């Protein structure tokens, strides 16, 4: 069964954010289904929809994002898509 998760990246805009984040995803064989991003007064926000096979991998993936978070001063969250459905759809 296909499960989808939302990766959100928030932080100060700088060179290499997208490249670093997507490298981690491709190294872990995660397919990106959709990307959208905005920059508001130097503040970078990117949201990606990714395809995950096994939800138990999310913790490992979150740990793999740690070095990127520390290096670029970003906050990266991964959450199953269902939580957004539950929050915003009746």
């Amino acid at each position: 069964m296909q499960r989808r998760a939302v990766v959100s990246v928030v932080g100060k805009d700088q060179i290499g954010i997208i490249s670093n984040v997507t490298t981690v995803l491709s190294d872990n064989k995660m397919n990106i289904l959709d990307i959208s991003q905005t920059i508001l007064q130097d503040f970078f926000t990117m949201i990606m929809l990714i395809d995950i096979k096994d939800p138990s991998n999310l913790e490992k993936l979150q740990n793999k994002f740690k070095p990127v978070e520390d290096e670029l001063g970003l906050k990266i969250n991964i959450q199953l898509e269902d939580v957004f459905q539950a929050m915003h759809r009746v």
Partner: protein
Amino acid sequence: MPIGFTEIQETIRMVEMEHLDIRTVTMGGISLQDCADHDFEKVKENVYQKITSYAKDLQKTANQVATEYGVPIINKRVAISPAAELLGRATKQQAIELAKTLDKAAQSLNVDFIGGFSALVHKGISNGDQVLLDALPEALSQTERVCASISVATTRTGINMDAVAQLGTIIHQTAVLTKDNNSIGCAKLVVFCNPVEDNPFMAGAFHGAGGRRSCSECRCQWTWCCS
């Protein structure tokens, strides 16, 4: 309808900036009725084994759900069937030991609270109920994570004034015994009127009494009882 960018941002803001979280996950449905035995040491052992085996994955599962959905779960708790049911032939000292056993189980499971050191006395005080009432001040002051509750009244049965009178003293004694720690013992005690069966809310959580049981626990002869 697909989820929009702003909706995702809203949710993330709620978790990150406004500290949206899930206050607690309480595991219920742990009936201690089948832990009874004439040897009280065996009762304690049964209770400890049953709680720690039923709830062994609670912490792990709750943490996994929190990670997957990105919403923190702050507390993990356990609710058991009212402990007074096991105390029919026990002494006050044994009731205190039972509370300590519950505390030990909560500590080994690493859950924040265990609810159900409870008695339902609105219809009258049985032996087990009285033993639990007598043990309450010491049980609450000598344990850390055990929560107790007493049902003293319902609309149907009226108010058990004997129980109310006793509880006045019990609450005072509990406050005195834990006076060096903000009388914390009283924060772990709820006195109920019209309690909801299978109540998951601490400190008054208890499970199983009066509700449906599984057939294997019930052992009655009636086809309509627990099917």
